[in-house]
């Protein structure tokens, strides 16, 4: 096809002025908005002094923290300044009271070999000499001169300080050598003692042994069945605190449930008086709507802090905070739902001479109930998430526990355990709420179709 003539172009331009001659604000609006956002971002960069924050950040901690989520380490120490080399384990180590791990080997000549990652990454030492093996290299360290000394070149995985030699062996761990002690950190994938802690009589037994003990073993604690004992041991696991964690998780669920439900119950009648098309008085409607705005604008945080102070920390304070916020939110969405209804069913019921309450019951409720339930479910779902954060300010539930575990920066495995539980709960509740809402929206859809069909 040949190119268009100037006349044709002009005629097209004249026919579609909304495309070719757009008003100025429409043509430059996006550009102005874009520039505005860009300027704002530059300002934010300065406001949060981001370059400085990044310069002072410790990104090397991130992989360390993340590995701690799914692994644990054991840190035995071997004193060299005593007549005989003795391994010492920290008091609450994951190995229990009397550890004899198979990766600590006592050799015939009195020296020790620690397998960090098999023989390929290991350290062998006696009082005068240590041998580090990793990355295919064997590095002897002499301890005889009162200082740890490496003769020959120092490989890059070893840092030789004046009085200490640090050998990093990647994820598997590290070895620190001074003249009077050897410190080993060996990392294991997984969660230590997740089921039974070191005080439990079931500790250190293989799953098969535990099952046979549960089924038909002699009573480990006289007077208690083994199953009850095991359940008690798991529930009171000192390291993982299963009992406490699950109770707190349940508190969070209860907070969201109770707050949303009570909020809905209170907001429901109020919404009828706030909806402009139903309420008899315009003033009442305005007052109620401002009341809803007030309840919503006094943030959930403020309510939570106040109720924590009033009732003491715990799920009661959290429920009350969600309840008060939810009166506002649900009151607002309910009254908006009511204002959007079709007035014809109401008129029909009114024409039969029904009283005010009956008109609402048969003329309004059937139309709004699915919408109300759907919105309440949506709020319930989002409050289940919100209750976790609210908990951290003292309103009870898993949030506080998470925050306490995180503050010490050492218990990331526990944090991850709780995060997984929270994720599980959120996913389950999302699915329930989505399923119910999808069914309800079909009801709403059907209703609208019938309405439309009847004209």
């Amino acid at each position, binding site marked *: 096809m040949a190119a268009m003539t100037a006349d044709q172009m002009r005629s097209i331009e004249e026919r579609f002025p909304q495309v070719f001659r757009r008003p100025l604000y429409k043509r430059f609006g996006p550009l102005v908005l874009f520039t505005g956002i860009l300027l704002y*971002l530059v300002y*934010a960069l300065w*406001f*949060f002094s*981001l370059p400085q*924050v*990044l310069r002072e*950040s410790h*990104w090397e*901690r*991130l992989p360390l*923290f993340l590995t701690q989520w799914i692994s644990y380490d054991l840190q035995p120490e071997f004193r060299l300044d005593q007549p005989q080399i003795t391994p010492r384990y920290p008091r609450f180590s994951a190995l229990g009271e009397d550890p004899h791990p198979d990766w600590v080997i006592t050799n015939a000549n009195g020296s020790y070999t620690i397998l960090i990652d098999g023989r390929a990454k290991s350290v062998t030492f006696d009082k005068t000499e240590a041998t580090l093996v990793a990355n295919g290299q064997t590095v002897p360290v002499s301890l005889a001169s009162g200082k740890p000394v490496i003769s020959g070149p120092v490989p890059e995985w070893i840092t030789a300080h004046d009085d200490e030699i640090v050998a990093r062996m990647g994820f598997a761990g590290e070895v620190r050598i001074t003249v009077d002690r050897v410190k080993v950190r060996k990392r294991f994938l997984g969660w230590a003692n997740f089921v039974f802690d070191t005080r439990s009589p079931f500790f250190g037994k293989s799953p098969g042994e535990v099952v046979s003990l549960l089924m038909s073993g002699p009573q480990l604690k006289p007077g208690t069945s083994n199953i009850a004992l095991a359940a008690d041991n798991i529930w009171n696991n000192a390291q993982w605190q299963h009992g406490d964690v699950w*109770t707190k998780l*349940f*508190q969070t669920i209860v*907070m969201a449930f*109770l707050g949303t*439900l009570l909020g809905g119950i209170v907001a429901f009648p109020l919404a009828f008086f706030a909806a402009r098309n139903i309420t008899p008085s315009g003033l009442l409607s305005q007052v109620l709507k401002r009341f809803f*705005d*007030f309840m*919503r*604008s006094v*943030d959930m*945080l*403020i309510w939570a*802090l*106040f109720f924590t*102070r*009033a*009732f*003491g*920390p*715990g*799920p*009661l*304070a*959290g*429920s009350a905070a969600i309840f008060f916020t939810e009166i506002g939110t649900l009151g607002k*969405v309910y009254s*908006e739902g009511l204002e*959007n209804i079709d007035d014809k069913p109401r008129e029909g019921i009114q024409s039969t001479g029904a009283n005010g309450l009956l008109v609402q019951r048969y003329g309004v409720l059937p139309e709004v109930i699915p*919408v109300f339930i*759907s*919105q309440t*479910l*949506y*709020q319930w779902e989002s409050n289940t*998430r919100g209750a*976790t*954060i*609210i908990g*951290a300010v003292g309103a*009870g539930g898993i949030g506080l526990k*998470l925050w306490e575990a*995180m503050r010490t920066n050492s218990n990331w495995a526990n944090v991850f355990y709780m*995060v997984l539980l929270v994720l599980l709960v*959120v996913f389950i509740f999302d699915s329930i709420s989505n399923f119910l*809402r999808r069914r309800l*929206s079909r009801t*709403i859809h059907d209703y609208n179709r019938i309405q439309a069909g009847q004209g």
Partner: protein
Amino acid sequence: MTFAATIRSDAVRQAADAWRRQTSLRRFYTALGIGSLLVAMCTAMWFADEANAGHFFDRLPHILDFLSWLVPKDWNDVWRALFDIASPHDKGSQEFNFPLGRVYLWGGFYLPEYFELMLTTLNVALVSTFIGFVFAVPFSFIAARNLTPSPVLRLVVKRFMELLRAFPEIVIAGLFAAILSTGPVAAIIAIGLHSIGALGKLFYEINENIDMRAEEGLRAVGANWFERVRFAGLPQVLPNFMSYTLLRIEINVRISTIIGAVGGGGIGEELKLSISRGFGAKTLALVLLLFTTIFLVDQFSAWLRRKLVGEQAFMMGA
């Protein structure tokens, strides 16, 4: 009675019976549902009360005692606290040291401390919403069934967004606080990541409901995926995107105050300190400022959303 009338009355009776049976069954189910909900509610109340440090009925008579510290001796102190004006009650204690927090901009012109903190909280909310928007838009187009043919890619992006949405913000905030060692930036990352998931979900649901004729037209002239999304998808969905983003700003202002209270800096932290120490005037000033700001943000966003997409902006959840 004629034969036809008998049949009819039989049919009518049957229909009436069926209807009655159905209604009574439905009534029974409704009653059962409401009954079990009430039982669950009472159990939940009992449980919450048992687990709480203070019990409801023990504390109820004292609820006004708790309000007593909130009432300041001098109401003018609320304004003084809000605008960092020196108070005559200042005896060197932290309760009345209002001018100490002034942030001098130039010369004698200063920003009151609480306004500065509120600004931090607002900025956290705005920047994190921006982060959420920027990442949610491409993700939402990849996750939309009608625009992305690969089910694997869709599934991966959807699950990823779900994970971001469900992951507790305080954990991300805590993790990054340990890395970045300052509050607000960690809060931005936490809320930003959450916003990606939350906005992405809403966005892709909008994307799946677009009118596909424009897309077909572009496909017919050989446009690639980016061009189809840009010229067929984006213009249709942008008003709704903006509307949900504004809604997200409202939510993020609230979240950022809460994250602030657990160590993210900003006004939340100050409020928590002030309440826990029982500073009446300061608490009232903070609550007033926070309330006004959230109220204004909500009203402004509602007005803008109404302009963008009309009444449709308020039909959430249904």
